[in-house]
């Protein structure tokens, strides 16, 4: 007779027994792998099924925003300085990376929100939701890369050796966004205020991040310098298109802090989920 898996649910705080808490965390992460993939495939294959334009929707926002800023800059409404190479290339690569960031921030809360019925009725490894969300963000990035490739060919961009570090850059952006998303998730599921202000704040955040302008500009304001997304996005873009906005130290610092907070966010997520489900009604 094989030993049966035993589960214990009690009223004690989950962290009272730290060892078994960590054990469960690791266990669940391992077992969530297969489910994460299934959920990711589900999300991806269902996300465009009810549309006419299909996966074009992954790239349309980036094209649209880029056109606006290129138009404004051509008309001299915006004055953009210190940019080497074509502006279209600069903005479109910035936009694609920026979208990776906003997708990552929104993903945890969106996933949980979409899955409320499931959370209330089915006991599955909850981590799978978050992991599947990350997978979806990366998949959408891959689709958008097609846009990048086309632009690169058009502008005849030379691929340098730095290019191999691009995935690390993208992963750091995803990591930072996901950490914020996961930390906000418990509050966002309880109070809709969080989701609403998130939409508002990301618009503001866009303008203090060097997406459509350069961070090497002399008179760029302080908010941009202290914005943690700046080193991540600017560095990754520089790796992509070979410009000179590389901030290695800040990049490593932000990434390390993100990793620490990811663990904290994960613990919070696990502690919060049963309480959140209790408050979501039947």
């Amino acid at each position, binding site marked *: *007779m094989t030993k*049966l*898996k*035993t*589960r*214990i*649910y*009690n*009223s*004690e*705080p*989950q*962290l*009272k027994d730290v060892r078994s808490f960590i054990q469960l965390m690791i266990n669940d992460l391992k*077992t969530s792998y*297969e*489910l994460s993939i*299934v*959920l990711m495939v*589900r999300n991806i*294959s*269902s996300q465009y*099924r*009810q549309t006419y334009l299909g996966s074009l929707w992954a790239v349309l926002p980036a094209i649209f925003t880029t056109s606006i800023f290129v138009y404004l800059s051509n008309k001299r409404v915006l004055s953009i300085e210190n940019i080497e190479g074509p502006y279209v290339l600069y903005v479109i690569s910035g936009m694609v990376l920026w979208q990776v960031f906003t997708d990552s921030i929104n993903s945890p809360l969106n996933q949980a929100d979409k899955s409320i*019925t*499931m*959370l*209330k*009725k*089915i*006991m*599955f490894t909850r981590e799978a939701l978050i992991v599947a969300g990350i997978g979806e963000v990366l998949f959408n990035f891959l689709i958008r890369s097609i846009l990048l490739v086309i632009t690169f060919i058009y502008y005849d961009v030379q691929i340098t050796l730095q290019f191999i570090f691009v995935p690390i850059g993208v992963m750091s952006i995803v990591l930072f966004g996901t950490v914020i998303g996961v930390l906000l998730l*418990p*509050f966002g599921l*309880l*109070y809709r205020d969080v989701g609403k202000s998130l939409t508002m704040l990301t618009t503001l955040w866009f303008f203090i991040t060097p997406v459509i302008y350069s961070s090497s500009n002399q008179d760029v304001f302080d908010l941009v310098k202290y914005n943690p997304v700046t080193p991540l996005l600017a560095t990754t873009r520089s790796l992509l298109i070979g410009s000179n906005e590389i901030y290695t130290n800040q990049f490593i610092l932000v990434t390390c802090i993100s990793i620490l907070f990811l663990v904290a966010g994960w613990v*919070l997520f696990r*502690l*919060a989920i*049963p*309480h*959140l*489900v*209790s*408050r979501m009604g*039947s």
Partner: protein
Amino acid sequence: MKNDELVVVDGVSKKFCKDLKKSLWYGLNDIYKELKIDSSENNRLRDDEFWAVNNISFNLKRGECLGLIGCNGAGKSTLLKLLNGLIKPDQGRIEIRGRVCAMIELAAGFNPVLTGRENIFINGAMLGLSKKEIQDKFDAIVEFSEIGEFLDTPVASYSSGMKTRLGFSIAVQMEPDVLIVDEVLAVGDIGFNAKCFNRIREIYENTVIIFVSHSIPQIARVANKLCVLDKGNIVFYGQDIPKGINVYTSLFDKTKKSITGNGKATIDRIDVSVNGKSSVEFDYLDNVNIHIEVSIDKSKLNPVCCILILNHLMEVVAQCDSSFNKVKINNIGKKIDINILLPALNLNPGNYYMSVSIMDEARIEVLSQHFAAKLLSVKGCFVGMAPVQLNGEWSLN
């Protein structure tokens, strides 16, 4: 292997809040308390809170099937969610061993734009089946669910019964040690329902089953232990199913009585007696006497008297009608005494309501109706699936 306890529930309580804003705030506080590793004051009710589940304990071994019954809002679903680990108890402890399969809402994991085929894999993975397991069982699932040609159709165009069927078929393939079923079988048609019960029978011996149902015949058929909940508390727990069902049906006693009609008749008295003694309690096959005193408006020359027997769900299960029995009630405006003998009344043990109505000859006008006027209690230890137990004369060759 048979006698090990798989489910141990010890003093479990859960509180909910009536006010949404407060509930959210308490939720936030509870999360903060988790971070502080503080379990104090879990047993205290905060403003606007109530115990949805209060101090519940029971143990279940393999082969035991616990029926959970109670009125709406008694805490049945909350208890199932606690057992499944979806929510956390505020007090007490739950220990569950083995593979748990909870059928709380079978269609919850379905994505409407994806096809049945795709959803089988998704739902199976969520229930903890590996891809290989699902592939192996795929044909069995499809066959059991009877969805046939709709397999590659988006689930959005399934009927609710079809979704439940598919959900049940996936869940039932799990070979669980503990099976939790929440009223999900109410949606399927009779044929599918029977199939589900047969399947539950198949896994019965090696499984702990906990199931919620409002259908007493279902409970009587499957459960070998019963737990009756009322407002979060256990009011009955044990293996004496008939007794438990009595406790359950008596929860409904209080409020049902009502008098309606257009006032052209007044029923002054309704009395039930057995063997000459006034009593609403009697045994199976007793001769039951009903005595009614009624005054009816002179304009109604030949009124009709009808007695209805209802079950606890207020469904009519039997009737006795003066016009059917070809009894003519001559009304001259004076008080009428009506006596009805119901010989060898073959109602199954349980609680029933009796309604009396007086109608005009055409049975259109209700002159007076005493709805659920009496609560009848049939004693006995046998509980059947139907309200009536026919007393057959059997012979075997």
